[in-house]
């Protein structure tokens, strides 16, 4: 089973989002939240799941719409590459977006918000 390497709160205290299969492999879904705006939840080829604010550190492009590869996503607007784990741009670009803890348990995706 896959998790991020962050300190995770128990999955039960997190919000249930969807099933793992509802996120396309090498793709993302957008979660609308009241407190944090849109959050992009990504799934990579190894079924690892990551969650970032859906707002590129460059000019706010929707990262959820980018191409996911390895553990990164390429922003659809001007092609910055963003690390899924921490939301930071790959050098030489600079800037980070907020990342959120996310966890998969028994095929269900939970988000810490």
């Amino acid at each position, binding site marked *: 089973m896959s998790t991020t390497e962050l300190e995770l709160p128990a999955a039960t205290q997190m919000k249930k*989002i969807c099933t793992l299969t*509802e996120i396309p492999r090498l*793709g993302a*879904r957008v979660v*609308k939240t009241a407190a944090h705006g849109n959050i992009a939840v990504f799934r990579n*080829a190894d079924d690892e799941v990551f969650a970032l604010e859906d707002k590129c550190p460059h000019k706010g492009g929707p990262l959820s719409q980018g*191409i996911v590869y*390895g553990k990164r996503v390429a922003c659809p*607007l001007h092609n910055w590459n963003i690390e899924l784990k921490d939301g930071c741009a790959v050098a030489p670009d600079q800037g980070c977006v907020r990342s959120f803890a996310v966890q998969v348990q028994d095929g269900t995706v939970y988000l810490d918000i």
Partner: protein
Amino acid sequence: MKKMKLVMVGNGMAGVRALEELLKISPDLYEITVFGAEPHANYNRILLSPVLAGEMTIKEIMLNDVDWYEANGIRLHLNKKVVKIDRVRREVVAEDGTVESYDRLLLATGSNPFILPVPGKDLPGVISYRDIADTDAMIEAAKTHKHAIVIGGGLLGLEAANGLKLRGMEVTVVHIMPWLMERQLDRVAAGMLQKSLEDKGLKFALEKHTAELVAGPDGRVAAIKFKDGSELPADLVVMAVGIRPNTALAESAGIYVNRGIVVNDTMQTYDPKIYAVGECVAHRGIAYGLVAPLFEMAKVCANHLAHMGIGLYKGSVTSTKLKVTGVDLFSAGNFTGGPDTEEITLNDPVGGVYKKLVLQDNKIIGGVMYGDTADGSWYFQLLKDKQDVHDIRDHLMFGQNHLGNVGHQGQNKAAQMADTAEVCGCNGVCKGVIVKAIKEKGLFSLEDVRKHTKASSSCGSCTGLVEQLLASTVGGAYQPADTAAKPMCGCTDHTHEEVRAAIRANKLLDHEATYGFLEWRTPNGCASCRPAINYYMLSTWPHEAVDDSQSRFINERAHANIQKDGTYSVVPRMWGGITNSHELRKIADVVDKYKIPTVKVTGGQRIDLLGVKKEDLPGVWKDLDMPSGHAYGKSLRTVKTCVGSEWCRFGTQDSTRMGIELEHDLFGMWSPHKVKLAVSGCPRNCAESGIKDVGVIGVDSGWEIYVGGNGGIRTEVAQFLVKVATHEEVLEYSGAFLQLYREEARYLDRTIHWLSRVGLDYVKKHVVEDAENRKALYARLKFAVKDYADPWRERAAGKVAKQDFEMLSA
């Protein structure tokens, strides 16, 4: 696992570049130790000239400071010269007794300045020009002394002379040959160069043989004597008469040396545990003295050190650019010619411009440029790519002309631009920023500049300007990439052509199979190769290959164009630009229902609805009930038409009907890049067929077909392909041309980019002259687009990719 030990001797430009390349691909393989005889970390030697000229400081030319070594876990021994290699015990020993053992040894000892064996060569005040210490010595001497002599009228000598002059000395350049830089310049260009340097106050003594350096009363050098008996005063003598590969250490260890340390194409010496790169090596009998080839060596060497076992160094063609501010000079390849070469020259002594190109078998093999070097990089690229220039010979001399077409006020001479002038119109980057980044970050390639400044990374129209800035800032160290052999991206060493061939030969049908078969370095590619691979598979194996939507750019995944605020635009297809009241009414209703903020008539003769929310897309499509216009795809965009013979009083052919037929025929065609067509009903050409990928023009007796046109960043006029009589022929020829493009162009090539590589004759041969081949091409295109389902209809019906348009909530 215990790490292997890699020891490097020589902390210069080539060696450290090899380490950088190694760390990039295999950061954990070795425990690395570096010995450097100089007391400095890694600096950019070629920028010593601007330091001497007072244009930069030592601090600014550092490439990697001590922290870099530490951050990468490299043990650095500065100020320690290695004096012995024990190949049996696999150890190196430094002057001070430091011993390090190795599993692999990398020699990068550079070269030594050649010192003329004349009496007085060891006097105080006689120096060479190689490192920071020499540069400091010159700067000091300039403060207290007056007369400088530079022996050697080559690149290095002239840069030294220029710097000393700027520091206030009286400088005379002594040269043995009848003209300056004879290895890089022909006599005419050298004459112009000498004139402009004389205008800056330099003096020249040509065809002078140095006999002796004479000491003054204080023991310091005071004069230079020539073999003809004449004499000049000299308180500082700089010898810049050439370099010799620094091979003493290797030789003493019994490693085979001939001119330089002899290496094979993998940069391995005769001892398989020992590699060598840089100016100290002799590769296929050649020892190089410029940075660009050394960097190519470094890359290959790193590859083999990392056990990747790929990549061979096959030698380099070099180009030269003198880094004297205000002097524009470029030379490359064989510029003197031979019995079976031809020359094209342009000589304007008043305007101070001279250009010479040397051609052999319709290919550029060398050239010299003085005064206007704007197109130097372009010529050099043509030279390296061995491109046939027969078709463009007429205007070759006038340059590529892609510089400054639009977006930068027609500027095309980088050197004359102000620092605040904008170079890249797309990303708003001005000259000063680019030059600063090149210097401070130690950038050498176009790719580097793109990454760090974003200049030239969008539309590419300023590429020529950026190349000029690179060339004038780092001199001959800049080398345009060899586009013919360029790997697709960082995930692989294979070229586009190789990948395509492998997909065809091995029937690779999905991404996993392709990456596996071609041994991709990354598990699932990157944002640059994945869309390309997806296209290559689809175009090679239509109806069989898996179309992976996650490997398509968002526009093609969402079947709409993403806008800067994350909304989308919807452009329904209007066949041949024809619409009716029913369609217009539906559009009006959709605009109202979904509160679409902007409705615009596009340049492609249809209507664009801008600002649609992603969730609304399926609903909008359903209500419109019109086919996708593919305004978002690397695919058929529009077929623009004029009014034509049905109404127009000049019309000779029914261009509207022809356009509609073409558009239906090509519907569903994915291609390397977008494809636009136009059909005009007479040569007045109201549909602008002259700037389309395929442009058709009606004449009394039939249709003329033009190909490879392009509007936009660089306007390209379409070239005449063929004249045909019937509608059916228009479909067949256009389709066959586009299929050839689909099968052979690199992903993201527009038709013109591909066409200018292969040449119109090639296309004519396959599409016009060979009827059977044309029919086969056309049949393959028809097969590829057969049964294409309109993507909007599928999605509007909720059949496909439903989740793509739904948001989740928490």
